[in-house]
């Protein structure tokens, strides 16, 4: 939850980008390029190391990005989307000629270390379409979801994205900042320098100009890194509301100070103090001898458990966790460090874990207006098992994460995550001996040059992902959340007190209406 620090994550993911993730092409580039590519110089002269076309596109994107940044050195005057679209059209020609030396170009002196490559705006929808070409869609189940490839570098960022936000975006996409409360707070904190460095252009006012020209690019960038959480959307709505309500007559300095202080107030009221209250209420639900089961990791559950432990309550904890994020590991480690007795299960063992538990505490990503809990995928299963055992299921959730949205199942609205995250390095290694048995067509299709004889030795863990991606009819799926039916939930503990899940819309209405 610390303020995002630019540095390592940026560098790291930037370097890995070239290798693992396919090149983040700018939608604008592709939109304009596809029709013209026939006439344009073919990728022939390009060195054919990887997929030549991909390599080229990547280079172009980077090249273009630099140019865009150089041209747009002045204050942004129009919608960056349009600018970059227009510009990129112009630049397609230039960049093609110069694309070979694109990578080796020395870093311009004006670029900050936290900004290794220069942002160009990326049109999400077009990108989504493009990505289907190289990669299979999660068709049947989640075909309707935003299938854009997650941004792992700042290459695709639009100009005008503040370095603090760039860094934050990378921390989102690499799950370094994970958990909806942490993401919410980190976002607000990252917006503070954005506001501080903002200068209202001549002839307009902060209230009118800031949101569309300064705040929106930041939000768009964050969204491209990972879809916004419900808490974040709520906070953004609130922030926009605050800014719009600023009297245009207010001096810029005063206005900025007001916004900054209301951000602080928001974090204090809706998160910090709310957490304190929830901890207090939650702690009362823990009795001596209890075995508290929790799933994955929630900051508020963690705080509540530690607080109860410090209050001298004697209880033990079962952490149920799942791949690929293993968030529960960190929680288990922390709790054990505080001296709690902790058991750790994976979700396959959940039915056994539930048998040993006496209460279930769950964190929330969001509470839906129909009383359903939207939380880390797997939560619903654990809540279901607990409900079947008649264990009380207690959800701890700040009211800032309540939403007016409703959901019936986990399929309509969800966040899709890259499937290759599912296979850890060791799992990939374990699968290597499969190689000789792979369907013959598959390897041929992948264009694996090695013969059958030495195939096994030369196979690398990275290949496994290619097998799966290359295999026809085969897909791996990963979503991040699921929806827990309201009937599995006994209590929702919020800063307004403990409520049944059916009261969520009431609290949601109250907390948004207050303003």
């Amino acid at each position, binding site marked *: 939850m610390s303020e995002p620090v630019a540095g390592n994550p940026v560098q790291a993911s930037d370097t890995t980008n070239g290798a693992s993730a396919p090149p983040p092409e700018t939608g604008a580039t592709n939109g304009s390029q596809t029709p013209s590519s026939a006439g344009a110089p073919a990728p022939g002269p390009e060195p054919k190391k990887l997929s030549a076309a991909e390599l080229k596109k990547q280079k172009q994107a980077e090249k273009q990005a630099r140019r865009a940044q150089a041209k747009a050195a002045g204050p942004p005057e129009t919608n960056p989307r349009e600018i970059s679209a227009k510009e990129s059209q112009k630049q397609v020609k230039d960049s093609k000629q110069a694309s070979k030396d694109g990578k080796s170009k020395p870093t311009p002196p004006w670029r900050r270390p936290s900004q290794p490559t220069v942002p160009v705006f990326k049109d999400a929808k077009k990108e989504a379409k493009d990505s289907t070409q190289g990669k299979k869609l999660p*068709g*049947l*189940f989640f075909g309707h979801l935003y299938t854009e490839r997650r941004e792992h570098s700042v290459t695709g960022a639009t100009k005008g994205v503040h370095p603090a936000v760039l860094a934050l975006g990378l921390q989102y996409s690499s799950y370094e900042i994970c958990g909806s409360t942490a993401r919410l707070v980190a976002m607000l904190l990252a917006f503070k320098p954005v506001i501080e460095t903002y200068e209202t252009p001549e002839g307009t006012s902060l209230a009118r100009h800031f949101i569309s020209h300064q705040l929106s690019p930041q939000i768009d960038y964050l969204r491209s890194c990972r879809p916004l959480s419900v808490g974040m959307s709520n906070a953004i709505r609130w922030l926009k509301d605050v800014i719009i309500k600023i009297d245009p007559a207010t001096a810029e300095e005063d206005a900025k100070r007001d916004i900054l202080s209301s951000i602080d107030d928001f974090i204090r009221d809706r998160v910090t103090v709310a957490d304190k209250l929830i901890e207090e209420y939650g702690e009362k639900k823990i009795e001596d001898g209890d075995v508290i089961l929790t799933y994955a990791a929630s900051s508020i559950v963690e705080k509540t458990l530690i607080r109860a432990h410090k209050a001298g309550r004697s209880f033990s904890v079962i*952490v149920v966790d*799942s*791949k690929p994020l293993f968030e529960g*590991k960190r929680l*288990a*480690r922390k709790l*054990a*460090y505080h001296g709690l*007795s*902790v*058991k*750790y*299960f*994976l*979700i*396959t*063992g*959940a*039915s*056994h*874990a539930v048998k040993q538990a006496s209460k279930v505490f769950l964190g929330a990503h969001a509470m839906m207006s129909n009383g359903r809990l939207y939380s*880390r*995928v*797997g939560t*619903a*299963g654990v809540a*279901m*098992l607990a409900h*079947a055992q008649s264990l009380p299921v207690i959800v701890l959730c700040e009211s800032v994460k309540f939403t007016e949205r409703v959901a019936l*199942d*986990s*399929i309509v609205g*969800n966040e899709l995550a890259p499937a290759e995250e*599912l296979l850890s390095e*060791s*799992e990939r290694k*374990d*699968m290597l*001996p*499969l190689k*000789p*048995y*792979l*369907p013959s067509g598959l390897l041929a299709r992948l264009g694996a040059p090695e013969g059958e004889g030495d195939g096994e030795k030369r196979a690398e863990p990275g290949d496994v992902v290619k097998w*799966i991606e290359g*295999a*026809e*009819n*085969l*897909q*791996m*799926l*990963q*979503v991040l*959340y*699921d*929806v827990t039916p309201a009937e599995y939930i006994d209590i929702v503990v919020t800063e307004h007190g403990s409520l049944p899940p059916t009261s969520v819309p009431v609290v949601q209405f109250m907390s948004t209406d207050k303003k």
Partner: protein
Amino acid sequence: MARDMAQAAVTIVTPGLSTFLKSLKTTPVEPSIENFISLLKRRQIRNSRPCAIATTALLHRVVGEFKGRDAGKLIERIREVGRRLVSAQPHEVVVGNIVRRVLGLVREVVDDSKDSETNANSEIAQISQQEQSPSQSAHRPNLSSTISSFSPLKHAAAEPGQLHASRQSEATSESRELLKRPMLSHSYTSIAAGVPMSHSLFGLFSYQDTPSASNTPTGHHSPTGKGGALTSHNLEKLADFSKPNARVDLKAEVMDGIRELQDELEQSDEQIASNALDHIHSNEIILTHTASTSVQRFLLNAARKRKFTVVHAETHPHDHTATHGIVLTGRKRYNEEHDDDDEGSSWKPLIAAGIEVYVIPDSHVFAIMSRVNKVILATHTVLANGGLIAAAGAAMIARAAKEHQTPVVVISGMYKLSPLYPSDTDELIEYGDAGSVVPFEDGEFVDRVDVENPLYDYVPADLVSLYITNLGGHAPSYLYRIVADHYRQEDITL
């Protein structure tokens, strides 16, 4: 053994089913038994099918080496071997199943030869049977403890009373409690004793001369005079058989039976798969889990004619590699064994048959379930009450399916059906290496946190909609009846 070891050392093959089967041909019986026991203990032969194959092969040999014509002694011998095997690895219930099946074979041969003689004493046997039932019901609580004396597991064995369908649901959950209620047990045993429930209706008369088929387990261990008399009567009859009998060659008959059993093991997947088209319709979305050859064959068979979609939960952390293996290549084991059972084209992955396969982590089961039409589970062991032991995660899958009103189909060979009733399901659950959950490199974590890794889940009968075995489809509530057809009451306590 030594040769086997040498061979293993040369080719660097880890001992397993194939090496055991190879060595079985050349090694004497006693070392073979020891070898199998140690393989079981070291978990080098694991999972139901390899255990079943190895057990049958071993028993085939045991019977082959058996000297003499005394059926009682042969039963005693098989039983003795069986006990050693079962206590070596009580979690592999299938070993006990096979031993019981073979014991049943011996008894059947004995009975058949008896049938041809007069069944003059059948009425007496039945009368004595009825007379004894009240006194035995009082002793029934002994039953579970007598089992536990040689096996670390304390299952309540299938009892005649429990075989009665109307008692089914009560018996499963509170079989022990039931035993303590004299009124109840009295009433239901008398029913059971009056009608020999454990045999098929067609065999009603021909089997009557078997002395108290339904009562023997208790009688066998009962200290009372009547129970003792019954046992001696039983043994007497078996000894009778040891008298030179020109018409039946006991050993040959039993060996034939075992060979049939081996055939059954081999063909069971195929037979199950032949039902596939009756159960899978077009455009279904089918969720399955773990890596199971039976399920794979079943789906492949359906894929010949139908298009459907498979969602495969990967069962991390035990079977995910095998799951990926079966999804990608159609085979789950790639290190050994496959050269034994290479069936060529049958190693075809579903994806090659044009079936779309989606691999999901186990946490996604609930999320996906609303779109799934049918859940097909593989199983480790099926219990007589209709519940099953399956790879960890199955309980969540089955319950999620129940919550979504999605039918749960369990695919299982008959050899996995055990006559055991679970009085304490936790005992049947094997716990695996915690290192596969959290690698031991993370020493600090492993030190501080208690990492548990259950390998199996117990899925209660009410979550299962249908069993598909090599005999066809059955409701879970009917399994007790199939148990009664396959296992002799005398053998339920080994």
